[in-house]
């Protein structure tokens, strides 16, 4: 079901990433002040932008889940936030490297992007523990969605507050993209954003495909071999997915013994 889309997306991502790195190394000019290390900008900034947008998208998916009661939206919200946390760590690390190279410190408190990135990371890092500590899958998805909506709204607000609170040292790349950035840099940057967005979409699609495939497999096994052949589910932070198309509902882990008294 996902096979064809996955192949196209994989090839497109590969092509875009290759193009990005080719442009970064052979086409984009060296920065006059910072030299070679400035090229990390083509990874750091797109990753940061994709992460922040993904968190908001995760919140929107969570809102759709609460509205429609469709568990598929919960899975999407979970996967988007999950991958975004990985991108977030990547953004923090590349940001720290860039800060070390251009300012001589691994961590710079007056760089709003980096600081708000850390705060956002700390908040979203609690998403998985929160899910994991709720056993009932239905309640888990509902509570996680409530969290994702609040946290999604938190992202822009936090960004604004941190930016207002810090002095400007950070190169204002986007504000000056018309005047300050040479067109060769701008082109490379745009290609890099496209590549990172594709990479993000690809990773999300892979995770969704993997999860629904293993659920499909589970449902088929149960149908063929009976309930005993399928090991009971352990506690998990990941949402339980319906075996796509088979129509059989997934078993709840250890029943709903935790129902309120």
């Amino acid at each position: 079901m996902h096979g064809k889309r996955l192949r196209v997306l994989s090839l497109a991502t590969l092509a875009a990433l290759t193009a990005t790195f080719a442009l970064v190394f052979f086409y984009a000019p060296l920065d006059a002040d910072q030299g070679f290390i400035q090229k990390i900008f083509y990874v750091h900034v797109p990753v940061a932008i994709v992460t922040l947008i993904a968190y908001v998208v995760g919140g929107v998916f969570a809102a759709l889940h609460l509205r429609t009661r469709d568990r598929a939206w919960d899975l999407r919200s979970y996967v988007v936030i999950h991958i975004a946390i990985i991108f977030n760590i990547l953004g923090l690390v590349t940001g720290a490297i860039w800060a070390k190279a251009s300012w001589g410190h691994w961590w710079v408190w007056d760089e709003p992007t980096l600081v708000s990135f850390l705060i956002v990371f700390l908040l979203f890092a609690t998403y998985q523990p929160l899910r994991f500590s709720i056993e009932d899958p239905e309640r888990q998805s509902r509570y996680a969605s409530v969290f994702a909506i609040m946290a999604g709204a938190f992202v822009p607000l936090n960004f604004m507050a941190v930016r207002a609170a810090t002095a400007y040292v950070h190169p204002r790349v986007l504000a000056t993209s018309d005047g300050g950035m040479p067109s060769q840099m701008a082109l490379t940057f745009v290609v890099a954003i496209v590549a990172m967005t594709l990479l993000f979409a690809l990773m999300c699609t892979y995770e969704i495909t993997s999860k629904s495939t293993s659920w499909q497999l589970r449902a088929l096994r149960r149908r063929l071999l009976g309930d005993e052949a399928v090991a009971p589910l352990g506690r998990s932070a990941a949402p339980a997915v319906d075996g796509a198309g088979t129509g059989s509902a997934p078993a709840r882990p250890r029943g709903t013994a935790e129902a309120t008294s």
Partner: protein
Amino acid sequence: MKENGTRLRWPRGHLRHPMRPSMALLRKDLLLERRAPEAVPAMLLFTVTTFVLFHFGLGRDEVAGRLAAGVLLVTLLFAAILGINRLFVSEQEEGGFDGVLLAPIDRTALFVAKACALFLFLALVELVAVAAFSILLLGPSPWPALPGLILVLALLNVALAVVGTLVSALAIRTRARDLIVPIVALPMLVPALIAAARASAPLLAADGAGALPTKWLAVLALYDLVFGLLAYAVFDFLLED
């Protein structure tokens, strides 16, 4: 029989006012806290102890300006976490959730009541905490700063009450609620702390209270507004079973 029947019926117009159920729930919470004080005394003791800890931790007899604002607000934030942890315990353990779900009232009434209760608890704590802070640690005189400080603390309390109530309801039925509350609530309250600290720092400056920075009050108010509306909108989903 007949008399009983009429007595059991809701009095006419009893639930007509939309705030009526919230006020009843709030009265219940305040009564509980008055009869068996639990959260407020703990928060108070915690605050004063933390001031003492800051004295030794920072090695200072007096603080002023941004340091003073930071010490006061971070202490209040941590104290609020204690209250947030306890907020829904009676509902969870004594069946208050079922009571609210069974009653013919809107579920958000519980949110409004709990947020108001938390706001009042925090205000009560701050009444003592600010006095203790000015005696124990604050360098400059607290009097000129007081009107501005009250405004900042009121706005901060709204943020704490709104986010705290939601996080508390989120965490109460998880397995590790004491762990979930601080790790979720503290990062979420960072923007509120930034704004409150920036707004109150000039008030506590060593060379006399400066003007209240309206920009930061606006940020704090925006935070209150956004999270207040959001929490109000999504609270329903936490009470569905």
